[in-house]
């Protein structure tokens, strides 16, 4: 898949923006001062100004409707810089869910707000330690015009700063997303700092009043697909960065009177890693494009891309630490951040095992 001119321009400008305004050092600063909001606010404002928060919001709602390839290009740079933004939770998951399954009223209320960066949304799916959207336990019971929700959610990205929760719940036979006001009675949000220094809250819902969507089931499916595809791009980006930093180190560090990059044992590992990273990245971009084209096999491609990217990012993180030796184990050095994010991003919206299992189901075996 080759980028068109518009996409190429987006890639170049986003690469500059993220490197300038959202570098790894910001992640460290946010962590060290235990930032209240837990994300890089100046970066988020810059992303709003560049229109990136509206990248998946249709033009009639104030977005730029650039499509998932565009969102993937942004995510790839987020991965390279480990930028801390609510891009995934809001601009990808929230925007996709609302644009796909929101009622006209809901779309009018939320989509322009997402595009102009005035709200943050959080998707609450998992109600166990592992991502199992086919077996949601949180229950929705009809109550007047709306529903009441009961259940508990884990790994809800950015929930502690969210203005809107999109909660997956089971109503009879079907599972759908429902809109919940985070300040509504019965909602408890426990902010949890994660290994990658991002925030993923535990959310408890105790008889919470919620608003059904026009098509909450389609909203959930679309959000999961978009989220996994974009995560595959982010993971590929971080894998590439970890790889390149390691490659650089092999050209600098000397032992036994020579550069460690002269040892064939490391040369071959670096060569193999480059191959893995390139395949992961190519597959992620292809899957994003399949989504934009509404290809028949888009779902299969996305599951494959997420499974591949989760494994490759973890491999890149592990190899990066190992090839740096002692210094790779230190917090002062940035390389460990990539390993940490690889784990957390890999787990989010389905780990490699889960995605491979769904992939096999779709391929009838």
């Amino acid at each position, binding site marked *: 898949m080759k980028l068109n001119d518009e996409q190429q321009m987006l890639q170049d400008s986003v690469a500059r923006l993220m490197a300038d305004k959202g570098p790894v050092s910001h992640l460290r600063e946010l962590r060290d001062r235990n930032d209240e909001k837990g994300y890089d606010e100046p970066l988020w404002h810059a992303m709003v100004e560049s229109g990136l928060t509206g990248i998946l919001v249709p033009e009639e709602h104030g977005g730029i409707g650039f499509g998932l390839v565009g969102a993937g290009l942004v995510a790839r740079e987020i991965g390279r810089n480990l930028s801390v933004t609510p891009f995934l939770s809001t601009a990808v998951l929230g925007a996709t869910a609302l644009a796909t399954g929101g009622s006209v009223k809901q779309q009018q209320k939320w989509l322009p707000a997402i595009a102009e960066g005035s709200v943050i949304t959080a998707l609450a799916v998992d109600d166990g330690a592992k991502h199992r959207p086919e077996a949601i336990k949180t229950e929705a019971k009809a109550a007047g015009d709306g529903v009441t929700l009961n259940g508990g959610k884990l790994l809800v990205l950015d929930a502690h700063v969210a203005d809107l929760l999109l909660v997956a719940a089971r109503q009879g036979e079907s599972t759908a997303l429902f809109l919940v006001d985070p300040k509504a009675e019965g909602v408890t949000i426990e902010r949890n700092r994660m290994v990658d220094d991002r925030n*993923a809250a535990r959310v408890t819902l105790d008889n919470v009043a919620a608003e059904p969507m026009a098509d909450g089931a389609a909203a959930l499916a679309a959000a999961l697909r978009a989220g996994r595809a974009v995560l595959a791009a982010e993971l590929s980006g971080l894998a590439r960065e970890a790889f390149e930093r390691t490659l650089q180190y092999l050209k600098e560090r000397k032992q036994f009177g020579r550069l460690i990059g002269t040892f064939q044992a490391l040369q071959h590992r670096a060569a193999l890693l480059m191959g893995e990273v390139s395949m992961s990245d190519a597959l992620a971009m292809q899957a994003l494009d399949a989504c934009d084209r509404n290809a028949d096999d888009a779902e299969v491609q996305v599951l494959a891309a997420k499974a591949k990217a989760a494994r490759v990012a973890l491999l890149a993180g592990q190899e990066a630490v*190992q090839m740096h030796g002692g210094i790779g184990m230190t917090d002062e050095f940035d390389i460990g951040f990539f390993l940490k994010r690889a784990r957390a991003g890999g787990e989010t919206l389905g*780990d490699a095992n889960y995605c491979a299992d769904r992939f096999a189901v779709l391929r009838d075996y």
Partner: protein
Amino acid sequence: MSDLEQFRAETRAWLEANCPEEMRQPLKSQADHCWGGRKWQFQSDAQKVWMERMADKGWTAPQWPKEYGGGGLSPEEAEVLAEEMKRINARTPVSNFGFWMLGPALLKFGSEELKRQHLPPICRGEIRWCQGYSEPNAGSDLASLQTRAEDKGDHFLVNGQKIWTSYADKADWIFCLVRTDPNASKHNGISFALFDMESEGVSTRPIELISGESPFCETFFDDVKVGKDQIVGELNRGWDVAKYLLTHERNNIGGEPPGFLKGRALGPLAAEHVGTEHGKLADGALRADIARLEIDQMAFQALVGKIREEAEAGQGVGAQSAVLKYYGTELNKRRYEVMMDALGAEGLEWESERTMGGLYAREWLRSKGNSIEGGTSEVMLGIVSKRLLGLPDA
């Protein structure tokens, strides 16, 4: 009853009577381990009592000779003691680098005076040791170390810097590789020196690990006086001691390191988080991963047993320690990866009470150091290629 059966019966009875109940619980984390030493604060009375009772028996170092504070047990008796301790889940009463590393090297290379000076305080848990090998420019290439020890007549004067010195800030004494002959070839001018970390001119700066703890340090020596009698083995022949000690270190790291997973099975942990269907783990791929891992571990343990038997028959472990170190640490890293897969979102939490302050993620990250400390996996495979396979140098 054979002598060994008799020994087993007595040991069992003694442990029953003397091992406090609290010391029969598996470690919750590495933080529960008793390191001993002058600065050690016991976490409970039970921990103190247990260490002292075992030290009185000489069982903190079961196979060391009695005259140096050890238990004087034969390998067979030591095996029985280990089995009986395992039977009641008894914790290791105390352990630190003095037991795993320095002790064996002193027993083989140390003078009678050095053994009498240093081994009994190790056995009693009174002195905690750290290892001063690595330097900023001497990691895998350890023999290129530059820390100097100059002969000043009645003492040596040590100047230089070490790095990645585990627990340098908590240890009482250091065993340290220093260059005593700058003109000799790389391996021939090194000596193995012992000195007190409270000596004037020693300073440490803790370095934080990716897991958030700070167990290792940069260690600086600025005109540190070291007694001439504190050299282990011959002057300028420290490399032999260093290598012998590394063999012990590698055997040890290759064993199951202390940590959350020590003595814990992954299957039940996974079932708790992933659930079961028809009596099987609900995640088929994870189930296969765990089974593959456990099979590899079983095969590794079988090989460990075989190598140990051969070592006891007098052939020594030698370069086989590189095999043990490589597979042991790579398997341990894999166990923590699979554990993280099994724990899902819960494993990622970094500070929550539920996860004992992010214990899972922290120990997962810490395990990454296993294939770096004590010689990297790449260096181990190099040793196997050259020393066991006889492959030529490039």
